[in-house]
């Protein structure tokens, strides 16, 4: 059988048809009518911003760990436990930065205890055990992956239990603790690049929107109200269109986020 070289070339050209080059500019207000802007938001984990901070100079992470967090017991109603759980997972990322094996293992156990209190223990058992196992072996990249996985599994389990709002609160709790640490670090050793890491307008808008859109039982919970107010106070400090965040603003963000983390972990 003879191959027709022209047909072969045509087929090859069809397979390797060059795709058009990307547009140099994207104008969200002028997208083609059939375009779709995806509403789903993936919240960065604290270790993403910690990784960026690490490149600016090695912070002394060990001094930033809230050691009482891993010993804490679940208190209050479901919204508070969800916020605490997020904050504890964030604490795990701080302990990983400090490469503190025992603290990370305690946090693995605390994640189990809080997940149990909120009815999602089953979803997170394997992750918690892996956190403890990898911490023992000092495989920090793996621990980071398992903390991220624990956060994801807890949230997915909550969504399956029709508790999407609680899943949002877990994210907010983690974000607040991560932000407190970053703001504390950059306000005490200020640099423009470091402070710029606090410029997160899209995330702040998203958190305010999701918390504001919750059912009144959750939206009007005393702690949720406090968190919503705190987020509203942080938003102008974290910069608008301009990514610059001043040392004074960073200090204020640290204070607001710190107060909220304290409120989250206090008895009602």
């Amino acid at each position, binding site marked *: 059988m003879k191959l027709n070289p022209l047909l072969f070339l045509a087929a090859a050209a069809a397979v390797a048809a060059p*795709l058009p080059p*990307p547009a140099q500019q994207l104008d969200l207000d002028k997208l083609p009518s*059939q375009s779709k802007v995806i509403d789903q938001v993936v*919240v960065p984990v604290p270790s993403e911003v910690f990784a960026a901070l690490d*490149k600016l100079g090695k912070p002394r992470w060990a001094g930033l760990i809230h050691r009482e967090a891993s010993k804490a017991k679940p208190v209050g109603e479901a919204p508070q436990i969800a916020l605490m759980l997020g904050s504890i997972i964030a604490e795990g990322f701080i302990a990983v930065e400090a490469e503190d094996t025992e603290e990370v293992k305690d946090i693995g156990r605390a994640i189990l205890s809080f997940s149990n209190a909120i009815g999602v223990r089953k979803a997170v058992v394997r992750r918690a055990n892996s956190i403890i196992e990898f911490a023992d072996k000092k495989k920090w990249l793996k621990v980071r992956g398992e903390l991220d996985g624990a956060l994801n599994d807890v949230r997915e389990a909550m969504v399956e239990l029709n508790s999407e709002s609680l899943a949002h609160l877990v994210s907010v709790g983690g974000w607040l603790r991560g932000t407190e640490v970053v703001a504390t670090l950059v306000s005490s050793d200020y640099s423009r690049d470091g402070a710029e890491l606090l410029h997160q307008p899209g995330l702040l808008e998203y958190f305010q929107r999701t918390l504001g859109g919750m059912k009144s039982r959750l939206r009007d919970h005393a702690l949720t109200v406090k968190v919503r107010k705190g987020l509203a106070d942080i938003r102008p400090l974290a910069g608008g269109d301009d990514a610059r965040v001043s040392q004074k603003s960073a200090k204020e963000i640290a204070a607001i986020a710190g107060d909220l983390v304290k409120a989250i972990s206090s008895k009602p």
Partner: protein
Amino acid sequence: MKKILLLAVLTIFATNAARAYVDDAHSRAMEAATPQAKQGFLVRQEYWAGTLATKQPSVVKHQLFKGNTYWFWLGSDEDSAQVTVHIYDPKGNLADAEAWQKGNKAAVKVVPKVTGTYYISFSIDQSKAKKNRWALAYGYK
């Protein structure tokens, strides 16, 4: 005998239910991520996913931090699909540091020059299917 039959039927149901949760589009995205995962990029567990018509451009907004390097990986479960992905900075300028596409997988690398909200633009440029399942994952280092 009845008990054995019942067990067999339940096993088949359980297996099918488990399979239903496998996201093939995400699996393709993870295949695209393999080289970077080996280089120490932390691949996030959470990802974006949905269905798209062919040639329907889509945009995801995401917070990126200056100092990190990111890769975004796009996959589709449709074998005939040709997918593309690119990234734009907060001012809407193309910010691809590197990009590739191969059939139903594509990826883009970005080294953010500023911290802020970036726009990941993607589309299914060609496909035999009318609707295509897609998944977009990312990793950082």
